[in-house]
């Protein structure tokens, strides 16, 4: 690779890393979230995983705090068929979103 190419690659990698560090990511559930919701941390973590797997290839996933639990319930009703969500996926995704929803 040419020197300008290496420079461009290095600068771009740095920019991406900086953006990644600053922009944050979808929140991972904590023990406190699980205790408050009365479900296991494993199920909430699995729900986050299914949410990313099933939703993010079509659109950037919304943060759970962008909606209330009721709003998430309605949003999942709207999206479940369109995204071909299996019942188990829908339940896990719903648990994650409602447990970390805006209160």
């Amino acid at each position, binding site marked *: *690779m*040419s*020197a*300008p*190419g290496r420079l*461009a*690659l290095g600068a*771009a*990698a740095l*920019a*991406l*890393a900086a*953006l*990644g*560090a*600053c*922009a*944050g*990511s*979808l929140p991972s559930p904590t023990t406190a979230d699980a205790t408050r919701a009365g479900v296991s941390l494993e199920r909430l973590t699995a729900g*986050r995983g299914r*949410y*990313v*797997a*099933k939703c*993010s*290839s*079509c*659109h*950037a*996933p919304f943060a759970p705090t962008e909606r209330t639990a009721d709003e998430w319930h309605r949003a999942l009703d709207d999206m479940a068929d*369109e*995204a*071909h969500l299996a019942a188990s996926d829908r339940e896990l995704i719903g648990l994650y979103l409602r447990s970390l929803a805006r209160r």
Partner: protein
Amino acid sequence: MNITKALRRALSTACSGAALLGAALLGPASASANERHFTYTYESAALPEDALELELWTTSRIGREERYIRFDNRLELEIGLSDRLLTAFYVNTEAKVSGTGDETETEYAFAGVSSEWKYKLSDASADALGSALYGEVTFGPEELELEAKVILDKRAGDVLLALNAVGELEVKDLGDANELEPIVEVDLAATYFITPAVSLGLELRNHTALPEGELEHSAFYLGPTAAWRMGPAWGALSVLGQIGAVLPKENEAGDREGVHFARDLAHAEAVNARFLLGLSL
């Protein structure tokens, strides 16, 4: 006349693909799209498991030292094998018009088939950095091409950034006298979502050809890119102009002596444009 014929055949291939997409549009469709927001730079997103997508590609490569217009067409079927792994199958054709002065040569050819595999490691929105590994092999009538990419991207609000490091090995003239041409490419792109369905951005490409391990050229391309989504269909268009190339410099004895930066129309085109049309099946 020959030019007309070649262009007509290229357009015919493109139209056939578009007709296929149109026919599919009439059928039931899901929202399981894997839309792209750039045309040269890949993103880490993968199709959901069991989802299918049809894509039509047209790449126009225009303007060299002599008359040169080339269309590379690809028809792709993409399949989600799991929520992280996808594979795709391509049929490739090319049409080329080249020549100098009054002499014009036209070619239209089947350019082989390709198999693509992509594995998503992390998500551009949900994780600190999106990443994926990509491999593609093309079997053509006169060449074998192996390509590997490392894909990094990040979605932050209405901005999406992507970076690809690409290594490619072209084996030409299969037979007794194979010619190896390693290629290194870096693609960098950024786009802004004007609405959730429409984005506008820039793409930068650095394409370096190293036949026999020696630098032939390292060309830089820059230009706008736009993408949109409408129901189960999406499209993306980039038009990149060559801003120059790093080229080997030769002394009077014909020996290589350093490099210089200049526009290279001997090995690379003045303009590269690509249009992608996708449809979730």
